[in-house]
């Protein structure tokens, strides 16, 4: 495994503004799947372990894709340069959908109130939530984009649920 492959994959992760799949990295770099895999393992190790204290950037698996992003502890400072896109209320509704999915819009309405209709519209438009007709209501799930967007290392609803539960419990302990 050459250092050069690692650099190629690094440049791709850096330049893509959204998470990229192994397939996309393969296409951009012309490397084999095996080499891309190995380079990703190396990069995750380099950024998150070896250089841990010497970089504010991390390489993470997001859904089935990979991405480079600012480490959480440096987040607040850089937030002024690139603003968050989703309102905090919408994020809460999204967190409820992700936890309870598949969840009926009518049940969600009972939890959050009628404002959820707007939220669901917004989240659907952002392609983070999927709404499927279900009798007189809609059945809501998160999309494939959801874990990618938030850098969650799983596409499995059960694991996403665990991730969220930990986050919520973490926020109480603070």
């Amino acid at each position, binding site marked *: 495994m050459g250092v050069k492959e690692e650099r190629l994959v690094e440049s791709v992760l850096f330049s893509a*503004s959204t998470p990229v799949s192994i397939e996309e990295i393969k296409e951009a770099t012309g490397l084999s799947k095996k080499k891309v895999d190995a380079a990703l393992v190396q990069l995750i190790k380099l950024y998150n372990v070896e250089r841990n204290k010497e970089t504010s950037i991390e390489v993470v698996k997001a859904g089935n894709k990979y*991405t480079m*992003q*600012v480490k959480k502890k440096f987040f607040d400072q850089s937030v002024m340069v690139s603003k968050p896109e989703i309102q905090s209320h919408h994020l809460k509704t999204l967190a409820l959908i992700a936890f309870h999915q*598949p969840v009926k819009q009518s049940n969600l*309405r009972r939890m959050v109130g009628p404002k959820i209709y707007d939220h669901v519209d917004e989240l659907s438009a952002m392609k983070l939530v999927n709404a499927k007709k279900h009798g007189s209501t809609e059945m809501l799930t998160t999309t494939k984009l959801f874990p990618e*967007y*938030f850098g969650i290392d799983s596409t499995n609803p059960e694991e996403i649920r665990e991730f969220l*539960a930990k986050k*919520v419990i973490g926020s109480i302990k603070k």
Partner: protein
Amino acid sequence: MSRINEYLDMVKIARDRDGIFIGSPFDRSIYLAFDLVLHQQLNPWDIDLVNFSSMYLKKAQEEKIDLITAGRIIYMAWKVLHMQSDNLVVHMEAKQDEEHDFGWEDIPTGAWFESDDGYSYTNLVMKNPDPPLEEPLRRDSKRKITLIELLDAFDQARKDAEEYQLLDQMRKKERDRLALKARKAMKGAAHEDHLEEDILAVWEKIQSYPKKSMSLSSICNTDDFDERIKTFLSVLFLAYDEKIRIYQRKFPFGEIYIKTIGYT
């Protein structure tokens, strides 16, 4: 509940036939109780127990029913009525829910309130000021377009334009066909004779209006019913011909607005 309905039926039959004989004293007492409710036009869902009791006792004395049975019947009737009224409230609430909310099939699937985890998670998410999800900070870098891409785009745009022209011609033909059909259908109608002139007149009015956006009522005398209809019809035709765009802010009875911008 079905027993009560039986008795109510009995009362109805009794009243219809005027003085039916009821053999069992117990049934007879019940009959009297419900008879009272019906004849005194008491609201069975909102019965004043004290009032009901004194009336019943009075009647029971007249009819020579023993007081112990009468007392039991009063108690039972009251209980039953109470049950029924409770049931009614529940039923009405459910119905309201159904109308304002969703259908009966909307019984929670996730059972979020039944599972402790689901319940506390939901509560915590709602109560915490910060959502458990945070948007990561990534680069939103965009690269410059190259000249080659611009040229490719031009090539593509020319093809798009050709396609659009072709489609537009087909659309125009179809529009003309439909317009002709619509006008034929209007034949014999009161407005048919002057439709073309009306449309032209309204179009001139719209064009001479100092703004590109106007309400329907600003270009016609709203008190004149005929003129209102004429203007409205013409506006519909003009919108159909894509000369204007019409919209409403409030549906269905809000003001109709006309916009010419972009359709010059």
